C-alpha cells in the first residue's frame, strides 16, 4: 500500500498507541527479574463467579516471552504504521483496532482461565477480521477477512467445546489449577478434549490443511501482516498448545498429531514459499513453515525440543516482523513487491537493506545470528524425538528451503540486479519505518552473539513453564562442538545454497507439482457457494412463499403431532354409548354440520355465507338447548354481524373459484377433525372437578350482587379477561380503520 | 326523534331511580315518560308524537288479523297438489303521502292475502306489488286502495 497523503505521521492519534504499547513493554520487561528468578505472578478477581470464571492472569516464563514479543513488536509496528499510513482518513480506527488486537493478544497469553482465554481468543479473531478487511472497498479484502474469520471462528467454536469439556473434566476452568491437578490424560473425555483443542489451535495457527486463510490475510496493510505473522494471531494457537503442554502432552495422540501436522506444514509451506514471486506472499508462507516447526516441536517432550521451541519462537518473531516491515518499506518506496522487478535497492535504501540482511541471515539460520542457535537446538530436539528421522528430515528440508527463500526475498532485491524497471525511484523511508526493522534485526544479531541474557530472562523460564522444571532447559550457545546438529546445519546450508541457485527452475517445477494438490483456497469459495446453494435450496423448499404450502404444512404438523402422540402415549377412550341421546340436539348438530358442508361444496358466495349462518344458528341452538342463553344470543349477534360484514365486503370481492377435490387437503383435514374428536371424547371420559363453578354459583349473588352467573363471571370474577377481550375488539376496529383509510388501493 | 329520545331518557331515569331493572319497570318508565312528554309538549314545540303512538296501538290488532288470514290462504295453496296461483307484478297508485303512512301501507299489503309490496317509486306515487292470486288485477288494486290504504289514512294521516 502506498502512502495516502504527504503527511508523515498522524499526530497524537499516531503516537498515543505507540506510547501505550511501549509502556506495556516496559512493564513486562520490569517483570523479567522476578520471572527469571523462577517466580510465577498471578492476579485474579471474580468475574463470573456463578460459573466459576475468574478474571485471572498469570505471568510465567511462557506468558512473559509472549507478552514481551507482543508489546515490543507491537510498539515498533504501531510506530511504523504511523508513518506507513500517515494521513489515512481511517487511521484512528486502524490504530484502535491494532491496539485492541494487541491488548486482546496480551490478554490471551496472560489469561489463567480457560474461558477468559477464549474471550481474548475470539477478540483477536474479531479484531484481526477488522484489520484484514481494512482495505474494505476491495472485494478481495472483504473475502479474505471473512475467510480468516470463518476458519478461525470455526476452530474457535470447536475450541470452546473443548474448553467446556476440559472444565467439566478438571472440575475447574483455572488453567493453573488444571495443570497442577494434572488429571486430564486419564479422563474419559481426554481424546475429545484433545481433538477439540487441536481444532482450535491448528486452525488459528494455520496448520495444513486449514492453512489457506493465512496467506490471504496478507490483504491487510503490511504492518498488520508483520504483527499478525510474527508475534500474534497465528501464535495464539501455538501459545495454546504450549500452555496446555503440561496438562495434555505425552500421549500418542498428542505426539503424533502435532509431529505429523507440524512436519507436513513446515515442508509444504517452505515449498510454497519458494514458489511465490510476491515478497509478501513468500514471507507469509515462511510463517507457515515456522508455525509448523513450532507445532512439531511442541509435539515432543524433551528439554532440547522445549528449549528449541522457546528459542525459535523468539527468533521467528524477530526476523519475521523485521522482514515484513522491510517488505513494507520496499513496497512503499518502489510501489511493487514483485521479486522479478526488484533489484539493486541496497544503494538507495541502505538502512533497510542492512536490517533486511540481518533478519534474513537469522532466518537462514546462519551464524552468528540467533537463528543459527535456534536451528541447532531444533536439530538437537529432533534427535531426541520419538521419530528422529522424520522430525529431523522435515526440519532439514524446511530449513534449507528457508535458507533459499531468505536469499530470494531479503538479499536479492537489495544486493543483486538494478533498480531499472521500478515504478518509482526508491528512497529511504522515515525513521519511524526504519526503527522496526533495524531494532529487530539488531536484536536478532545481538542475541545470537550474546545468548546468555536471553537464556536467563526468557528461554529457561519458558522451558520451566512448559516442563515444570528449569533444569530441562538446554544451553543456548553458538558453538557446542562438532556434533550431529552441527553436521545437519552444514547439510542445511549446502542444500539451501543449491536450492537458491536453482530456485528459478525449481519454482516452475513446484508450481506444477503443487498445482496438482487440491486448491483449498478455491475450495473455500466452492464451500461458500455450496453453502449458499444448499441454503437457498432449503429455503426455497421450506419458505416457499406459497400460502397453500404453509397451511398444509402447519395443519399437517398439527394432525401428525397429535395423532402420533395419541399412538405413542396412549389415549384413554371411554366406551361410546348412546345413553341420553336425544333427537333434537342431534338434529341441530346435523344442521350445523350440513351448514358447514354447504360452505365446502358451493362456489356461490352467498350460499357460503348462508351456510355459515346456518351453522352459526345451529350452534346457537345448541347453546340454547344446553342452558346458555347469553352465549346463544352472543353467537347469534356475532354470526349476524359476520354475515353483514361479509355481505358488505363481497360487494367488491371476486367470485369464488370452482371447488375441486383436493385429496391431500382432505386427508389432512380429516386427520385434524379426527384428532379433535378423539381428544374431546377422551376428555369427556374423565371426571370433571366442578369446584370453580360451585364457587361461582355460591358467591355470585351474596358477594358479587348478580343473578346472572355468566355475566358476573365476565364482569367481576374474571373481569380482566373481559378487559382484554374488549381491547381486542377495540384494536381490531382501529386496525381495520387504519388498513382501510391508510391504503389507497389499486382501483380495479 | 327528540321527543322519542327524551322519552327513552326518562324511562331509563325511572329505572335508575327505582333500582329494579326489569322490562316491566322499563315499560312503566316509558309510560311515565310518555305522560311527561305530553305534559311538556308546549315547551318542546309541535310534535305528532302523542297522536302517532295512539295510532300505532290501534293498528296492531289489524296487523295480526290480516296476517292470520293471508297465511291460511297461502298455506292452502302450498298444500294443494297443484298451485292455483296467478302470480303477477302490479302497480298501485298511492294516495297516502306521509312517510309513516307509506310504511304502514306497504307493510300491511305485504301481510295481506297473496300480496307483497316490492317497492315504492321515487316520486312516492306508485307502489309495486307482487300478487299471488291476480286473476283480476284491477279488482285487486281497487280492494287494496279501499281497504288498507283507507284504514291507514284514517288512522294516521287524519292526525297530520
Amino acid at each position: 500500500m502506498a502512502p495516502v497523503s504527504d503527511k508523515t505521521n498522524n499526530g497524537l492519534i499516531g503516537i498515543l498507541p505507540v506510547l501505550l504499547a511501549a509502556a506495556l513493554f516496559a512493564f513486562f520487561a520490569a517483570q523479567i527479574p522476578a520471572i527469571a528468578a523462577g517466580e510465577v505472578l498471578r492476579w485474579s478477581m471474580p468475574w463470573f463467579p456463578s460459573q466459576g470464571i475468574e478474571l485471572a492472569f498469570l505471568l510465567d516464563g511462557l506468558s512473559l516471552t509472549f507478552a514481551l514479543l507482543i508489546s515490543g513488536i507491537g510498539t515498533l509496528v504501531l510506530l511504523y504504521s504511523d508513518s506507513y499510513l500517515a494521513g489515512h482518513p481511517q487511521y484512528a480506527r486502524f490504530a484502535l483496532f491494532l491496539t485492541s488486537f494487541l491488548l486482546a493478544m496480551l490478554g490471551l497469553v496472560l489469561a489463567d482461565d480457560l474461558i477468559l482465554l477464549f474471550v481474548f481468543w475470539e477478540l483477536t479473531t474479531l479484531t484481526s477480521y477488522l484489520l484484514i478487511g481494512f482495505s474494505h472497498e476491495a472485494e478481495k479484502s472483504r473475502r479474505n477477512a471473512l475467510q480468516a474469520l470463518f476458519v478461525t471462528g470455526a476452530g474457535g467454536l470447536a475450541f470452546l467445546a473443548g474448553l467446556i469439556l476440559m472444565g467439566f473434566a478438571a472440575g475447574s476452568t483455572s488453567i493453573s489449577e488444571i495443570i497442577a491437578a494434572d488429571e486430564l490424560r486419564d479422563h474419559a473425555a481426554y481424546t475429545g478434549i484433545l481433538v477439540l483443542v487441536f481444532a482450535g489451535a491448528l486452525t488459528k495457527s494455520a496448520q495444513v490443511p486449514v492453512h489457506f486463510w493465512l496467506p490471504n490475510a496478507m490483504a491487510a496493510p503490511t504492518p498488520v501482516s508483520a504483527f499478525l505473522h510474527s508475534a500474534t494471531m497465528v501464535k495464539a494457537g501455538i501459545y495454546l498448545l504450549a500452555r496446555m503442554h503440561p496438562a495434555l502432552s505425552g500421549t500418542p495422540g498428542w505426539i503424533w498429531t502435532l509431529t505429523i501436522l507440524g512436519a507436513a506444514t513446515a515442508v509444504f509451506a517452505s515449498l510454497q514459499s519458494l514458489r511465490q514471486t510476491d515478497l509478501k506472499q513468500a514471507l507469509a508462507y515462511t510463517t507457515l513453515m515456522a508455525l509448523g516447526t513450532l507445532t512439531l516441536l511442541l509435539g515432543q517432550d524433551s528439554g532440547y525440543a522445549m528449549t528449541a521451541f522457546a528459542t525459535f519462537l523468539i527468533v521467528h518473531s524477530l526476523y519475521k516482523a523485521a522482514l515484513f516491515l522491510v517488505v513494507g518499506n520496499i513496497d512503499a518506496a518502489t510501489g511493487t513487491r514483485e521479486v522479478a522487478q526488484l533489484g539493486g535497492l541496497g544503494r538507495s535504501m541502505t538502512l533497510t537493506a542492512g536490517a533486511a540482511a540481518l533478519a534474513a541471515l537469522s532466518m537462514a539460520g546462519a551464524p552468528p545470528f540467533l537463528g543459527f542457535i535456534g536451528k541447532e537446538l531444533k536439530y538437537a530436539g529432533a534427535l531426541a524425538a520419538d521419530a528422529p528421522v522424520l522430525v529431523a528430515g522435515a526440519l532439514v528440508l524446511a530449513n534449507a528451503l528457508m535458507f533459499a527463500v531468505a536469499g530470494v526475498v531479503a538479499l536479492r532485491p537489495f544486493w543483486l540486479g538494478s533498480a531499472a524497471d521500478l515504478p518509482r525511484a526508491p528512497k529511504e523511508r522515515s525513521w519511524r519505518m526504519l526503527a522496526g526493522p533495524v531494532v529487530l534485526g539488531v536484536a536478532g544479531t545481538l542475541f545470537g552473539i550474546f545468548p546468555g541474557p536471553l537464556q536467563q530472562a526468557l528461554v529457561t523460564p519458558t522451558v520451566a513453564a512448559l516442563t515444570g522444571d528449569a533444569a530441562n532447559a538446554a544451553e543456548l550457545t553458538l558453538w557446542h562442538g562438532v556434533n550431529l546438529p552441527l553436521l545437519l546445519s552444514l547439510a542445511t546450508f549446502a542444500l539451501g545454497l543449491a536450492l537458491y541457485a536453482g530456485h528459478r527452475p525449481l519454482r516452475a517445477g513446484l508450481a506444477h507439482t503443487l498445482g496438482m494438490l487440491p486448491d483449498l483456497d478455491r475450495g473455500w469459495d466452492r464451500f461458500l457457494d455450496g453453502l449458499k446453494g444448499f441454503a437457498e435450496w432449503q429455503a426455497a423448499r421450506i419458505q416457499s412463499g406459497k400460502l397453500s404450502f404453509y397451511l398444509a404444512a402447519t395443519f399437517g404438523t398439527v394432525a401428525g403431532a397429535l395423532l402420533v402422540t395419541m399412538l405413542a402415549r396412549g389415549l384413554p377412550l371411554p366406551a361410546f354409548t348412546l345413553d341420553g341421546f336425544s333427537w333434537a340436539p342431534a338434529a341441530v348438530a346435523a344442521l350445523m354440520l350440513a351448514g358447514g358442508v354447504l360452505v365446502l361444496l358451493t362456489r356461490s358466495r352467498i350460499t357460503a355465507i348462508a351456510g355459515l349462518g346456518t351453522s352459526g344458528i345451529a350452534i346457537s341452538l345448541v347453546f340454547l338447548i344446553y342452558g346458555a342463553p347469553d352465549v346463544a344470543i352472543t353467537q347469534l349477534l356475532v354470526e349476524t354481524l359476520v354475515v353483514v360484514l361479509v355481505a358488505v365486503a363481497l360487494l367488491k370481492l371476486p367470485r369464488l373459484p370452482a371447488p375441486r377435490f383436493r385429496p391431500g387437503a382432505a386427508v389432512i383435514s380429516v386427520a385434524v377433525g379426527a384428532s379433535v374428536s378423539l381428544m374431546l371424547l377422551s376428555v369427556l371420559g374423565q371426571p370433571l372437578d366442578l369446584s370453580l363453578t360451585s364457587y361461582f354459583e355460591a358467591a355470585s349473588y351474596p358477594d358479587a350482587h348478580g343473578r346472572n352467573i355468566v355475566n358476573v363471571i365476565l364482569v367481576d370474577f374474571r373481569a380482566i379477561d373481559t378487559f382484554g377481550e374488549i381491547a381486542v375488539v377495540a384494536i381490531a376496529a382501529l386496525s381495520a380503520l387504519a388498513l382501510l383509510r391508510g391504503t389507497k388501493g389499486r382501483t380495479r | 326523534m327528540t321527543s322519542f329520545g327524551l322519552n327513552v331518557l326518562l324511562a331509563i331515569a325511572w329505572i335508575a331511580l327505582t333500582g329494579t331493572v326489569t322490562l316491566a319497570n322499563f315499560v312503566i318508565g316509558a309510560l311515565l315518560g310518555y305522560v311527561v312528554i305530553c305534559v311538556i309538549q308546549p315547551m318542546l314545540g309541535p310534535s305528532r308524537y302523542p297522536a302517532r303512538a295512539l295510532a300505532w296501538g290501534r293498528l296492531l290488532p289489524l296487523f295480526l288479523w290480516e296476517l292470520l288470514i293471508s297465511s291460511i290462504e297461502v298455506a292452502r295453496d302450498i298444500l294443494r297438489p297443484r298451485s292455483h296461483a296467478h302470480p303477477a307484478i302490479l302497480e298501485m297508485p298511492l294516495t297516502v303521502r306521509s312517510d309513516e303512512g307509506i310504511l304502514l301501507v306497504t307493510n300491511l299489503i305485504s301481510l295481506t292475502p297473496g300480496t307483497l309490496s316490492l317497492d315504492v317509486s321515487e316520486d312516492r306515487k306508485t307502489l309495486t306489488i307482487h300478487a299471488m292470486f291476480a286473476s283480476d288485477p284491477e279488482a285487486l288494486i281497487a280492494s287494496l286502495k279501499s281497504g288498507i290504504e283507507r284504514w291507514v289514512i284514517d288512522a294516521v294521516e287524519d292526525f297530520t
Partner: protein
Amino acid sequence: MTAFLDAVVTGGLALVVLALAMAFVRLWRGPSLPDRVVALDMMTMAMVAFGGLAAIRFDTPQVLDVSLVLALVAFLATVALARFAERNVAGEDNND
C-alpha cells in the same frame, strides 16, 4: 308441565325442526340469490319459534330473550344480504 303439553311441545319442536330442514334444503338448492336469502330468513323465523318452544320445554322464560334478539338481528342480516343481492346485478349465483 303435564305430559300432554310436553307431547305437544315435542311435536311442535319436531315440526319446527322440519321447517328448518326444509328451509335449509331451499338454501342449498337456491337457485337464485334471493331464494337463499329467503331461506335464511325463514330459518331465523323457525328459530324464533324454536326459542318459544324451548322456553316452555325447559321452563325458563329467559330463553325468549334469544328469540327477541334473533328477531332483531335477523332483519339486519336479511337487509344486508338483500342489498348484496340487489347490487350483484351480474347475476352471480343464479345458476351454480
